């Protein structure tokens, strides 16, 4: 016969569960993941190269995993820092998922690691939906991308714990309006910190490492409005939490 079966299951429940498990597993080993999101060409590899070098100079055990659709170019660049680096080829997939990341860390991530930087696939749409078990989610945008980037990609910027502007050395040439950019970030993610960086000139280099180390040491990270669980106030428009796995039927 024909039935309507209530499921009330979050579509990404499996990824969220894997992410939760990975975060707890890594936290028990004293490791935190930093998930870096940006569009292609925003300069996240260049900034990361500098941060990894700095970590090495300061004897902070870090590692980096870079995800791309194709080529090992980024891993080759990051490996010059001397820290453990792994390239993941997603074979066309536009984002990483928590289970994939966990599989790649298994047997590779050194035990003494404190921070793992994950350079997600260059894409501001899809990776935003997938929790990788990170402790710190960082969304980057270069000064050339336009001040309205946070409004065009509200989930990527709205779910960030930290926003990083790159390539400030050419800000003047491209007439980057910092105040407008900050106002747009504030609109989708009130209270999030925005850091200005230039990998070429060294501006702001180390800030990412400092914030990540603070996070691994237990300093509370920013709590984005978009990432908080909805609070219910007894209004009639409440929506049930999406975790139930027991189905009941009404036919």
């Amino acid at each position, binding site marked *: 016969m024909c*039935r309507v079966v209530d499921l009330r299951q979050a579509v990404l429940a499996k990824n969220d569960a894997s992410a939760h498990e990975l975060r707890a597993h890594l936290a028990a080993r004293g490791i935190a993941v930093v998930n870096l999101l940006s569009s292609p060409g925003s300069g996240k590899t260049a900034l990361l190269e500098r941060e990894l070098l700095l970590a090495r100079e300061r004897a902070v055990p870090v590692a980096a995993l870079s995800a791309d659709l194709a080529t090992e170019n980024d891993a080759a660049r990051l490996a010059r820092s001397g820290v453990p680096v792994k390239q993941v080829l997603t074979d066309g997939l536009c984002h990483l998922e928590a289970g994939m990341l966990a599989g790649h860390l298994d047997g590779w991530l050194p035990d003494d690691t404190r921070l793992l930087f994950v350079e997600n696939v260059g894409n501001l749409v899809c990776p935003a*939906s997938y929790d990788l078990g990170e402790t710190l989610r960082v969304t980057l945008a270069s000064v050339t991308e336009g001040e309205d980037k946070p409004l065009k990609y509200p989930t990527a910027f709205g779910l960030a714990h930290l926003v990083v502007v790159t390539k400030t050395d050419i800000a003047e040439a491209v007439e980057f309006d910092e105040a407008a950019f900050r106002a747009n970030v504030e609109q989708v993610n009130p209270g999030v910190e925005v850091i200005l960086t230039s990998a070429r000139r060294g501006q702001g280099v180390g800030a990412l490492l400092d914030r990540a180390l603070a996070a691994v040491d237990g300093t509370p990270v920013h709590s984005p409005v*978009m990432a908080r669980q909805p609070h219910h106030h007894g209004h009639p428009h409440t929506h049930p939490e999406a975790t139930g796995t027991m189905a009941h039927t009404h036919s």
Partner: protein
Amino acid sequence: MHEMSVALAVVDQVEEAATRAGDVTAVRSVRLQVGELAGVVPDALAFSFELACAGTLLEGAELITEAVPGRARCTPCAHEWAVGMPPRLTCPACGGTRTDLLAGRELQILDVHWEDGLGPAHTPTREPIPEER
């Protein structure tokens, strides 16, 4: 475009639920709640869903998406507003930045309409009973 991954996750979960229930012969439709801020495009999802269903128990199933508008509430002044797209998450009334997002991030399967061989004893007919909502 991660809508294909989302569609595959939906198919996977419905198939699991069907296996748990036992004796499900076909899935007619799946009703999905998609928040305005879920980062999923319903049209792209519908396209992917059809492909993801091919060769599964869900072959030919209809995807019904229910859009959920984004709504927020200001903690200090209690003002409530529709966040719009792009969303405004600072309070339009007092300018406050302590905001609760009440709705808009939903991405969940609400219910599934399927056929099974487990007819209730009191129903002599095998005619489909219309959905009650």
